[in-house]
């Protein structure tokens, strides 16, 4: 196996507020190898975004802080506790990020071109003219028609899809090794979503860039991800290749997520939403954090927090789930699908 580009180990990012300590990210480990797409999946409030902000060192401090003992290594270099200056040189250069809301993520008072040129001039030391040429080429690469003309336009003159393309252009400007895409398609309508995903897939292929895709949309994950990290309540609930996780979900939470997506090939079937909501991050349950919402829950889950248990796939792939069912498989009822087809 190749050396990982990004190795996150036991990441704990807590928010120290007046209402108590919110353990937004609570011992998360995963890795991304060069050129790979890893999807970080979970409901709102499970710690996906805080995880990604932690990688860039952008967690608002105070109240947030990455705890000692956490480790984020980029090509082996430790980023936790690295100087602000060092992190600043990585941001937008080695590690770039695109955000959920293209409407709000671009500065309304600067031209699109100015905003793309900024990282080029900052990290690559380009002249204004060189940056302009490069930015126009980037606009062209992300599929914006009339790029030279668009360069001088302001964000409000572009549609949502166009703005997200501009965000992508800003992110890939300095040819980062890792692109973190935080819900890049959530705010867009479906046809545009597909276009942006297609664009990301192309760029990844052409540039050999790794992508950490953060999303709650499993449809998106199935399309583009190599590996999946399912997060729940600040922890990793399940990891594995996309095929494994979708084909044979091991954690009841993953099962629940899959059962709550509408699917064209199973029409007439009722959707089964997961009951309840993610508990508040300042009040995680003591035992299994999913126990309250789990259809299999028994005494062990309420009493003891399960560790991330390795699963034997027999295919030599890294696979694990944070569930006592791995240890006691007999307690799993017949899967949801069989139950509903009547």
């Amino acid at each position, binding site marked *: 196996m190749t050396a990982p580009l990004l190795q996150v180990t036991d990441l704990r990012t807590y928010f120290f507020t007046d209402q108590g300590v919110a353990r937004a990210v609570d011992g998360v480990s995963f890795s991304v190898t060069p050129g790979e797409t890893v999807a970080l999946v979970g409901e709102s409030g499970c710690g996906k975004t805080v995880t990604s902000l932690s990688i860039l060192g952008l967690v608002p401090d105070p109240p947030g802080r990455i705890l000692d003992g956490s480790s984020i290594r980029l090509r082996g270099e430790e980023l936790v506790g690295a100087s602000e200056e060092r992190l600043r040189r990585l941001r937008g250069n080695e590690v770039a990020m695109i955000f959920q809301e293209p409407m709000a*993520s671009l500065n309304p008072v600067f031209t699109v071109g100015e905003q793309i040129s900024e990282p080029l001039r900052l990290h690559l030391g380009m002249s204004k003219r060189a940056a302009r040429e490069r930015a126009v080429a980037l606009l062209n690469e992300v599929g914006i028609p009339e790029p030279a003309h668009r360069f001088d336009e302001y964000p409000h003159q572009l549609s949502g899809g166009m703005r997200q393309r501009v965000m992508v252009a800003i992110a890939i400007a300095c040819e980062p090794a890792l692109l973190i895409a935080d819900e890049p398609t959530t705010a867009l309508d479906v046809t545009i979503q597909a276009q942006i995903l297609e664009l990301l897939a192309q760029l990844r292929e052409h540039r050999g860039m790794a992508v950490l895709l953060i999303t709650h949309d499993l449809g998106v994950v199935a399309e583009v991800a190599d590996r999946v990290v399912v997060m729940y309540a600040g922890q990793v609930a399940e990891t594995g290749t996309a095929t494994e996780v979708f084909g044979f979900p091991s954690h009841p939470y993953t099962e629940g997520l899959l059962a709550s997506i509408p699917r064209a090939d199973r029409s007439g079937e009722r959707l089964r939403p997961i009951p309840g909501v993610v508990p508040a991050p300042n009040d995680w349950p003591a035992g299994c954090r999913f126990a309250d919402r789990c259809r299999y829950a028994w005494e062990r889950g309420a009493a003891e927090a399960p560790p991330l248990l390795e699963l034997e796939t027999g295919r030599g792939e890294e696979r694990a789930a944070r569930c006592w069912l791995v240890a006691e498989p007999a307690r799993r009822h017949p899967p949801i699908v069989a139950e509903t087809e009547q």
Partner: protein
Amino acid sequence: MTRYLIRRTVLAIPLVLGIATLLFFVINLAPGDPTQLMINPSMRAEVVEQMRANFGLDQSLPVRYTKWLTAFVRGDLGYSYSYNQPVSQVIAQILPNTLLLSGAALVVAFVVGVLIGIVQAVRQYSLLDQALSFVALFFYSMPSFWLALMMILVFALFARNVWDWPIYFPPSGTRSVDFAQLGTWDQIVDRARYMVLPVTSLALVLAAGIARYTRSSMLEVVRQDYVRTARAKGLRERTVILKHALRNALIPVITLFGLYLPVLFSGTVFIEYVFGWPGMGKTIIDAISLRDYPVVMGTSVIFACMVVVGNLIADVLYAVVDPRIRYE
């Protein structure tokens, strides 16, 4: 943009006329008239009547209004009773002083206010933030004329006569008596020294309000996604704040520019009086007590025009700072 400016300017004409009309009736309905200060008790009634007739005060109000309006639209502001000069000449002498004073105060107020607001927003809830908030509230709630008196007491009187400070400022006037003998550089320094106290008294009150406004606007903006984007690009914190955040935070602050002009001019009236500054404010007060109607009307109309122009400038500034605003 040009068409918009022309339209706004044309629309400003009835506005200024309306203000002038209102003023005309208010000042003329006030008891007393200019002759009362010129006569003495031994004068015969016919003489007094003759004087009133000379000034045209024996005519009815509507007739006087029509006459005044006709002259006004032709650009004739009338003849001052007390200065014995055309009003336009009186204004020409004092307007530069007022523009200098209020212009300097406006610049100082915005520069100081915005800077303090940024510092407070960046260091929100810190001791510095709280201290600056306290100081800002202190000056915000203080009448500027009282502040002016305290400044004179401390920085002119005590500084020079009691504490023997190396630096003190003149409490009154616009320049030293030996101004004409000074070199160019010394002339500039001399004028600046005379401006320090009146400008500070005027600017501090405004700066305090601007700081409070900038702080909250800035706090609103730094939470925006595009500020996070700027950080994610690897920009220096200074660039993030002073370029990406500030430009957006200034948009609502520009509103204050238009709103504060009337406050500034009414402040000028008191400040000029306290510091013996020969400007529009001091002149208007003197003219009101002397019932010098043409001077009151002339200076008021100039003030009204400056407020109208100031608001026009504010609207243009909006379009300059915020590309989403386009005037058609």
